């Protein structure tokens, strides 16, 4: 069973994403800020990360950079889900190693489709 870590400081967004990913058959871990996410990455070594960018304690960029630079976790795919939609922000997301950058608000169907594409490409 693949593990997904969802990090966002908006509880309602977390709730919807949790429902969605469980339905897709993932084991879901929830983090309400960057710090919690950082701990969970090391504990659970998730295969997929859905990261908000602006979060207390550690932001999404920092988390992604950590994951992509660490041999134990770098296999994981990172998708940014952010309300920040400026070109600069998107570019930075890819610069720190993110696999996808999806601006909020997003379509759930689109999100699932893109996750599946990523999975297929990796396999």
């Amino acid at each position: 069973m693949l593990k997904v870590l969802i990090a966002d400081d908006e509880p309602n967004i977390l709730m919807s994403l949790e429902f969605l990913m469980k339905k897709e058959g993932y084991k879901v871990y929830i983090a309400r800020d960057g710090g919690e996410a950082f701990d969970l990455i090391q504990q659970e070594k998730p295969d997929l990360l859905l990261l908000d960018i602006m979060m207390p304690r550690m932001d999404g960029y920092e988390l992604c950079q950590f994951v992509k630079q660490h041999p134990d976790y770098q296999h994981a795919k990172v998708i940014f889900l952010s309300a920040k939609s400026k070109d600069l922000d998107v570019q930075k997301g890819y610069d720190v190693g993110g696999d996808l950058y999806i601006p909020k608000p997003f379509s759930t169907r689109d999100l699932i489709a893109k996750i599946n594409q990523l999975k297929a490409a990796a396999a």
Partner: protein
Amino acid sequence: MSSLTLTLCSLLYLSVLFSIAFWAERRSKRGGSLLNSPYFYALSLAVYCTAWTFYGSVGRAASGGIEFLSVYIGPTLTVPLWWSVLRKIIRICKVQRITSIADFISARYGKNRGIGVMITILCVIGIIPYISIQLKAIAESFAVLSGQSLVGPTPVWLSDQSFYMTLILAAFTILFGTRKLEATERHEGLVTAIAFESVIKLVAFVAVGIYVTYGLFDGPADIFQQAEKLPSLKQHFVFHAGHSTSEWLWYIILSMPAILFLPRQFQVAVVENVDEKHLNKAMWLFPLYMFVICLFVLPLAFGGKLILNNPIDDADVYVLSLPLHFGEKGLALLAYIGGFSAASSMIIVETTALSVMISNNLVMPILVSRPSWQKQIGNAWSTVVINIRRLAILAMLLLAYEYYRQVSHHFSLVSVGMMSFAAVAQFTPAIIGGIYWKRGTQAGARLGLILGASVWFYTLIVPTLVTAGLLPAHWMTEGPLNQGWLRPYTLFGLHGFDPISHSVFWSFFVNIGGYIWGSLYRPQSPLDHNQAVLFVDVFEYARRYDSSVAWKGKVQVSDLKALLTTFFGEERATRAMERYIRKHKINTQNYLADSRLVNYTEKLLAGAVGTASARILIASVAKEEPIALDEVIKILKVSHELLTVNKELRRKSIELEKLTEQLREANELLKAADQQKDDFLSTVTHEIRTPITSIRALSEILHDNDEMDQETRQHFLSTIIKESERLTRLINQVLDLERIESGRNKLSMEVTDMAAVVQDAVESVEQLAIDKRMELEVVNTCPEVTLIVDRDRIMQVLINLLSNAIKFCEEDKGHIWVRTELQGMWYVVSVADNGHGIEPKYHSLIFEKFYQTQDRNTRKPKGSGLGLAITRKILELHQGSIEVQSEPEQGATFIFRLPLTRFERIASAQELG
């Protein structure tokens, strides 16, 4: 104390002086000039305090009480004028390269040679006695300390220590006072040594003063109490019947010009001045110096009288005899050195200044006016000038020494000093008139000076010649040729004055009268007028001096250069010329110099040989044409117009700069406002995206998943509704804030019963508190208050604060207090809770829009982040304010104030009253 010890100590002190002077010269060559400090300038001014101050004031105080103060009060009274008078004189001297008081007056009145000669002679005659009393003071103090008798035969030259002392002082002055040809250049070593001497004499005098006042007596009160018991001293406490207040007044008047126009004062205050700004400090430091040195004069005088009350002891040397009487040899020696420093500093500076006057105003004009002599001296001019000065120094000191031996024992320190003051005071009309009155003419100055100096000589010097036996005694009693109205002390039958006041009265009378008459009724020559304008309006012409001097004629550039070369050497002459030509873009194609170059050359020469000599030198190489007064006026006008144009241009460019700066600032402000707007917009979009994200995701999930259980479905639906509400609230608040900030939303003010508003607000949130099982309590400590406010807006503020409080309190435990009270002019409402509290560093931030997004380490509280910003804005529109008091985990109290209306203020004042 043996003469040998004393001689050795004097020599030791002099060698210290030499080393300080050498050290200062060396230091300044390396660029570390001490004279850049205003303190050195102020201390050098204290060369005013001579042996007369050090010994003489005590003597005078012993016989005349506080009369001695007059010569310190006079200078102090002039201090406020320094900023206008002294600064102007300094500026004129710098611009025209003037090096002495004689040069100053001669330059002002058409660079007239005769006036320079007259001033120089008057100075020398007036000041040689003054120098001689300094030598006398040194000799007497030496005698007192070594136990020699003051009376008895005067020793022959070669066995007299004071003769050798005179020679050493001459050597010092020659070494440090005639180092450079250009008298405008600073005498670093000399001035530093003088400043040092000023410290020494002050320390020595104060030390003796403290010893006598606190060592021999129990403080000043004790001395005065004891002195009061002696009738001879008690009379000195006040002006008694015998005192003449007019004498006191005349002495004050006499010492006022002395502080600036004595050659030594002019030397340190004007010629050696490095920076006009030093006046600022000197203006209070110098009077303070005089105050301190006068402080112990009366205690010393009375103390001396009380302890050494016998007529043999000379009160002039109490400073020495008091410590000596009690065997304090060390202190007596210090006092001797102090007196020595007071005397030597005067001698050194005075002779330096006089030597420049003698060389530049007396000898040089004669030497340079003979073409044959000019040729003979050739390139050795600078050596000749300097040697003349050296010779002058030696001659004057020997003259003073001889005067001391032959004449000075007839007179006291003070009387001789006063005669010098009176001589120097004769310059006052010519100088003050010269720098403030353009009509003052050469003829007037000459007439005033001749009359004033003659009367001075007749009323003060002639009597001394009578006393010395050089003139028949009946002159004093019957008058020359038995003409009673010519008696020197009662000229024209004027009785009731002491000799000094009498002389000052008559000499001033004829001097000022002559000056004004001559100026009004004798014509002013073109050069005279030219200089008059440049002096009086120096601050306007200072920068354009060279082009403001009218000159017409033909002179080759090479001749000017040759002239400079003979005085300054090939290298310096070439450099000075080339720099000037380059700087002013002077055309030298046709080998003829233009008038600016001529004036510049003349100015350079003036710094070395004096204004009158420089004029003669230029005239000797140039074919000059006479210049008419209207040409002078035209040149001055052109120069002045250029000045005005320049000023106007400068003003315009400054204005332009200001405008540019203002534009730049406005642009910055616009940019900042733009940036703020951008930030706000991106924050708002971000805040809007968040609830929309939840709404969209949850709706899609509901749409795609029919098989969901009822409970989850319900939960999702209610979340969608809540997020929609959040979105609506956000949009409303953004619009609200925008309306308030742009001023589009006008407050609708009405008379409002505040207690009712508070009650309504509390009621509207009460249900929320009850749902969360919180306590909500209202404490009204103020009487009924009606304010003129926008009722709905104030309600909005209260509801906002109350719902915040409810939001941040824990359920079940929450407690909220609303308190209203009157504080002075303010109606104050506080909303307090026992919730999580806020760290102090966020106290000001929380009132900013969307503040939570600024900080990454705190969880977002629920809400738009605009509530408190709106709250503050509303209160500000009411001329009110809001603040928060809180610590983490200690709850938070939001306090807002609204100003009372005038009616309420009166009511509350009555209540308090």
